[in-house]
């Protein structure tokens, strides 16, 4: 066995620069020099059309290539020619072999070893034949993947149940199946010098704002990194405000959400090996909106959207308001309520700010522990943590019952926000506001809240203001912001899309008139 240490990286780089040679033994030598003794690289020798004068070899990766396709490749090369009595002497170019011999759907000639290797490690089958100047890449990608399942972090009651998987082509197909529009473009890209991760940029050509796709490509092209293992890598490398705690790139596991974004004129970025796709540009309000808003009737959709806005405010501000009122401005609390709070706090030895911080941190701890533990234990920990420890803490006089209620409502509210990643950001914002409110009362509360608001107003997502359509105010987009207007009123796309018309006018349904006319 050759010594692994002999495979110097610079030697491999030199080999990769080479072209495919007409002599099979040269190509085999190059392949061995590059791939070494990797057990998953399989080589299968064959004789073209059964003729011993025309040896060849195919290379493929075990587990990455579909064995049935590889069988078809071999069958074409060995038996199909002899069955049709083809003269192997005629089969001197990759083009002739592709058109006259191969029955696979996708066969491409390849001239450079680097391209050949790249295709093979992506799951394609590589064919070299003695005397033929080019190699051939036969599409044979096929590996065991997770089936299409309901996304765990984005549940809904009404609507499709399918989610993205770790296979990029399955994901693009899931979106393509929803938008059968020839204007839908899916452009390929590879990022990561070592992982060579496939990236696909999807957009609808006549809807997307001019320049947006170029900007997305420019930012993706600018990424120089060795590995992309998840969409989070890309997200952090393309966002407008990298230091901001706000998410300026939306992520989703739902194909219907991605399709909806495309139809709004936005760009979707698919990344191989992750079920999470990225959507740009992103606006803050999208994190409060859920697909159910559009699948249920508008009354229901609007009502629950308002509930979520309340949940957002509660999860951000409730502990701060409570701490501020109890610590500094108790005269603002109605008397009966103040007495109830005071009686609950009578035995608590901590100042209310410390009590709130302890409880908030304990809640985050339980959430994190519940997430990391094996599922059955995780659920038990959450229930034990929230019920038993909370109850015990109140009975021991360490925290007041009111604080338990406040923290519980805050926690539940944060889970009502449909976007998990943005709810995490919200949870973090709570702490500076809480600290400021607990130390400076109303002054600290107002100052931190407005500083946060100023920051949110200042940031952009791919050139679009983050708080659009509230600020800058876009009247036409208000129909789908705080409330969800009836479908027959949503006749235009968001302001940044190129083609505004979504549907015909006068779409409001009505029963037939008495004279029978519509």
């Amino acid at each position, binding site marked *: 066995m050759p010594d692994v240490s002999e495979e110097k990286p610079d030697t491999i780089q030199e080999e990769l620069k080479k072209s495919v040679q007409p002599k099979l033994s040269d190509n085999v030598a190059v392949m061995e020099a590059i791939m070494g003794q990797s057990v998953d690289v399989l080589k299968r020798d064959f004789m073209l059309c059964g003729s011993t004068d025309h040896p060849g070899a195919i290379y493929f990766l075990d587990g990455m290539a579909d064995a049935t396709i590889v069988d078809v490749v071999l069958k074409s090369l060995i038996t199909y020619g002899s069955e049709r009595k083809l003269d192997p002497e005629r089969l001197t170019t990759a083009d002739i072999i592709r058109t006259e011999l191969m029955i696979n759907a996708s066969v491409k000639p390849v001239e450079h070893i680097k391209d050949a290797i790249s295709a093979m490690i992506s799951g394609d089958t590589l064919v070299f034949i003695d005397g033929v100047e080019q190699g051939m890449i036969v599409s044979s990608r096929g590996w065991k993947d997770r089936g299409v399942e309901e996304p765990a972090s984005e549940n809904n009651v009404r609507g499709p149940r399918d989610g993205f998987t770790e296979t990029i082509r399955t994901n693009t197909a899931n979106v393509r199946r929803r938008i059968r529009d020839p204007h839908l473009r899916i452009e390929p890209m590879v990022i990561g010098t070592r992982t060579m991760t496939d990236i696909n940029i999807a957009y609808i050509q006549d809807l997307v704002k001019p320049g947006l796709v170029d900007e997305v490509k420019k930012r993706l092209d600018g990424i120089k990194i060795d590995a992309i293992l998840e969409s989070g890598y890309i997200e952090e490398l393309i966002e407008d405000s990298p230091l901001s705690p706000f998410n300026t790139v939306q992520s989703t596991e739902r194909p219907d959400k991605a399709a909806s974004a495309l139809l709004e004129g936005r760009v979707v970025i698919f990344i191989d090996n992750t079920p999470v796709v990225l959507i740009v540009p992103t606006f803050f309000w999208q994190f409060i909106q859920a697909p159910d808003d559009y699948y249920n009737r508008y009354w229901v959709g609007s009502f629950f959207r308002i509930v979520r806005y309340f949940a957002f405010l509660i999860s951000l501000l409730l502990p701060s308001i409570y701490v501020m009122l109890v610590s500094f401005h108790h005269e603002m609390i109605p008397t009966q309520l103040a007495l109830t709070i005071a009686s609950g706090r009578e035995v608590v030895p901590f100042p209310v700010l410390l009590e709130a911080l302890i409880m908030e941190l304990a809640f985050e701890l339980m959430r994190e522990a519940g997430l990391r533990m094996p599922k059955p234990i995780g659920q038990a920990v959450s229930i034990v943590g929230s019920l038993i420890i909370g109850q015990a803490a109140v009975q021991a006089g360490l925290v007041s019952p009111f604080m338990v209620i406040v923290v519980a409502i805050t926690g539940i509210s944060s889970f009502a926000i449909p976007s998990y990643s943005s709810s995490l950001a919200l949870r973090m914002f709570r702490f500076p506001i809480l600290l400021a409110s607990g130390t400076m009362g109303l002054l600290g509360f107002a100052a931190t809240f407005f500083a946060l608001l100023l920051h949110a*107003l200042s940031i952009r997502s791919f050139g679009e203001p983050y708080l659009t359509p509230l600020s800058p*105010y876009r009247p036409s987009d208000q129909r789908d912001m705080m409330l969800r207007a009836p479908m027959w009123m949503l006749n235009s796309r968001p302001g940044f899309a190129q083609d505004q018309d979504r549907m015909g006018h006068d779409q409001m349904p009505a029963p037939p008139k008495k004279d029978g006319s519509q």
Partner: protein
Amino acid sequence: MKIQISNGMFIAMILNIMYAKAIGVTQGVLARAVGQDMWLATLLGTLEGIVMMYLTYVVIRRTPDKDFVQLGQLLLGRWFSSLIALVIFAFFIVAFGPIMITFVYHLRDYFLPDAPLWIFVVTSLVVGAIGCYYGLEVMGRIAMIGLLFMFALNVLITIGSMQEFDIRNLLPVMESGLPRTAKASMHYLADCAMATMMATLVLPLVKKVDIGNGRFGVLGIIGSGMMIIIWAILEGAVLSSEVTSQYTLSCMKLARNAHIGTFLQRYEMIMIALYSLPALFEVMFCIYGTSVCISRIFGIKSNRPMIIPCCIVLGVFGYWIIEDHFRAIDFLENYWPFIALPVAIGLPLIMVLLRVMLGSKLQKKSA
């Protein structure tokens, strides 16, 4: 790329910069001067403010891409532009006094009596500096949100005060006579002065300012008048002018008095939270105004490097003013209008005169 703000943002900025001081501190001063006619003084002040704002527009009408400082350079050269920048810089330094009186006394006297004064000054300057750092566009956007807050505040105070509203408290009308009411209106006009001085720097950055015939600034003053006169009427009718005149912050007395039903007896904290945004916007614009002017004097392209030095100057002056209540009230009633009005009226008048005198020179330079 040149920053531009929308007409709506400009109008919102005018409302924000006037509102916080005019609804309470100014109304208290007016009540002391003309009793129940304070709403008339506010109305007169609004009419005078319209003229003052239009005058500011007239100055830049022919050169809509130049603010007062840049126009000064065009008219008489660098020394004159520096002089104008210095005057505007000084104006905003002085304006910071009444703004701090408004902001600090609201929060300290009614909510945090034990907190040291410097905390209020430093905190407001930090938030203001953040806004100023993000630039005029962000300030315009927060002003739009401030507008929503002001509407909400007006609705809350109206609902909470209607039960005690007694129109007889506003009678007799014009008891003080027109001359006294007109004289008192200068206190409100001093608030308008902040808006017009803001316009001297911001107006050229408003989209399509040249085709609006000055209507956006005028609309801003009218809008402010409408929003503020509600408070003047409520304070007069609910509290009576005698009670209003006893308070430095008469709006807080009205807010404390307001209640909705029997459970929500006090909700002035909600109102103050809403009120904080316009108040902080005033702070923000003082930092912006001073930092822009001082950077022009020193020939620095961006105002950002000057934000912290300006905050220090503003902070020291603001602290000195609010440290002593008597000094603060004395400054507010006896010095502020007499500094603000000559600058806000005099500067546009001088510029208009110079434009008339040097019109041909200006045309050549513009060409």
